[in-house]
């Protein structure tokens, strides 16, 4: 089945950058209330604003293979990049995931994230793949980054993530 690409299984078994580390600028805890999946995610930044560099993303993810692998790919794709680049990756990732399968994903932009293209065909699992990304953008906001308005966002998925996730956080 095209959902469980080898890349996803690998990331879920050996998640990149897993574990919570210090120092960090903001920590966010998100729960998917429909299934109980949880992620605690920390972001450490160097600099400020969109030019800031994502120095570290550390996380503790409890959930299905999709949600754990998504956190792993996120950490791999955004660490060492600027906040502006990370947000572009997020938008590309979200665009693909909410496309119902019409957007195969741009490997240049999202790297191993393309393995999640199959998830888009399973609406119930999109929120698993977005959980860590939602936590990441929430953590950026808590760390003082002024997030741009989400252009071209898919309203249905936004509603899903609003209804089904609960978030709490703190800044270090």
């Amino acid at each position, binding site marked *: *089945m095209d*959902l*469980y690409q080898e890349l996803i*299984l690998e990331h879920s*078994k050996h998640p990149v950058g897993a574990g919570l580390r210090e120092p960090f600028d903001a920590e966010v805890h998100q729960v998917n209330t*429909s*299934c*109980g*999946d949880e992620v605690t995610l920390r972001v450490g930044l160097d600099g400020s604003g969109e030019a800031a560099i994502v120095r570290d993303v550390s996380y503790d993810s*409890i*959930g*299905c*293979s*999709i949600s754990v692998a998504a956190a792993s790919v996120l950490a791999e794709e955004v660490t060492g990049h600027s906040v502006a680049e990370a947000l572009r990756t997020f938008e590309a990732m979200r665009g693909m995931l909410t496309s119902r399968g019409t957007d195969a994903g741009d490997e240049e932009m999202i790297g191993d994230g393309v393995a999640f293209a199959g998830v888009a065909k*399973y609406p119930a*699992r999109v929120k*698993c793949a977005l959980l860590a990304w939602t936590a990441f953008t929430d953590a950026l906001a808590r760390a003082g980054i002024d997030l741009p308005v989400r252009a071209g966002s898919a309203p249905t998925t936004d509603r899903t993530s609003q209804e089904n996730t609960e978030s709490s956080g703190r800044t270090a």
Partner: protein
Amino acid sequence: MLDVERLREDFPLLHRTVRDGRPLVYLDSGATSQKPRVVLDAERDFYEQHNAAVHRGAHQLAEEATDAFEEARGKVAAFIGGAPDEVVFTKNATESLNLVAYALGNAGAPGAVDGADPAVAARLQIGPGDEIVVTEMEHHANLLPWQELARRTGATLRWLGLTADGELDLATLDTIVTPRTKVLAFTHVSNVLGTINPVSALVAKAREVGALTVLDACQSVPHLPVDVRELGVDFLAFSGHKMLGPLGIGVLWGQAELLAAMPPFITGGSMIETVRMEGSTYAAPPQRFEAGVPVAAQAVGLGAACDYLTALDMTTVAEHDRRITAAVLDGLAERPWVRVLGPLDPQKRCGAVAFVVDGVHPHDVGQVLDDSGVAVRTGHHCAAPLHRAFGVVASTRASFAAYTTLDEVQAFLVALDRVPQIFGISTSGAPSRGPREVLSEARAKTSWGE
């Protein structure tokens, strides 16, 4: 023995395919059952021929609609061995349970019900120092209303814990259920473990201390013969859509003398006697608890579902369920990488088998099954404390109905074998920890059930 192949002809949905042409194997009847054509036809006939607002209007259609609605009430009452006036139609079982909890919460207010028998009214009142007892295996629908009632009234919520085998821990019954207990609310059959609870022992204890009993029968009424007088409970709640009936209708059955003394939960039209600006009086049960225009078409559909199940014969349905349950348990026992939650003896359970595959999240298990056309439920099944007691976040649940076949059980087992292949887990050897170990470890880490 049920002629399952024949009765499946009555269920249009069971013949469709899913996921690129695979035959549907529907093992999620515990969440909601599929509906036979007679139920759909009954609803359609009501709308096409008799639709009008029940208990209102002087025209012929209003009479016919009212007759159809009340006839359905009689069918439901007969199906569970109660009297028609003891059957309250609600939106679903959740509303039925909330109805009892809110009515008890309102019972202490002055003038709650005019002319109520004071001795009966006293049994319904709840306040500080009183205790409400539930169990750790409850669906949230039979837990949260009682948590809320305790919070609003100052009463204390207590609960019976579980054994490692997924049965109620009755060793603590005498210390948990005491003369302070006003309500003992518990499920007849666990929606996760399938455990059939010992109703008679619990009812006997509740009677000894003068507590009201509230039984969640959502998972028993579709699978077992249920007779309210034999069970001896005070209230019993179930939903229509899990027993081959329509969505949007539930039932609360209550002992007549208790309902008569109970204040309403939802107020408004249809449930009144006289209304004045200064205050109002209420209709007798069951109308007192049916505010607003009743869900007549759904009631008629539920009546048809009762007829359908009666024709199958509930004893025969129960035997069929045991055969299916046993086949699932046998199949899972051959797979040491699967850990079943709940009793391993099919005589002690019905309706559903929940399990975990160590190392694979239930969502992933469910997704692999879905890819083979097998529909199961994954998650905490609205029973988070139960899962916590077993040291797991979630589980995968296969659940059954009269239309479930042994071939479907085989298809499910074959599909399940793809899980270790895809996720690369070992299929040999026994699981490292059994439920007993997991439960005791989980208990050591948390204070649940203490």
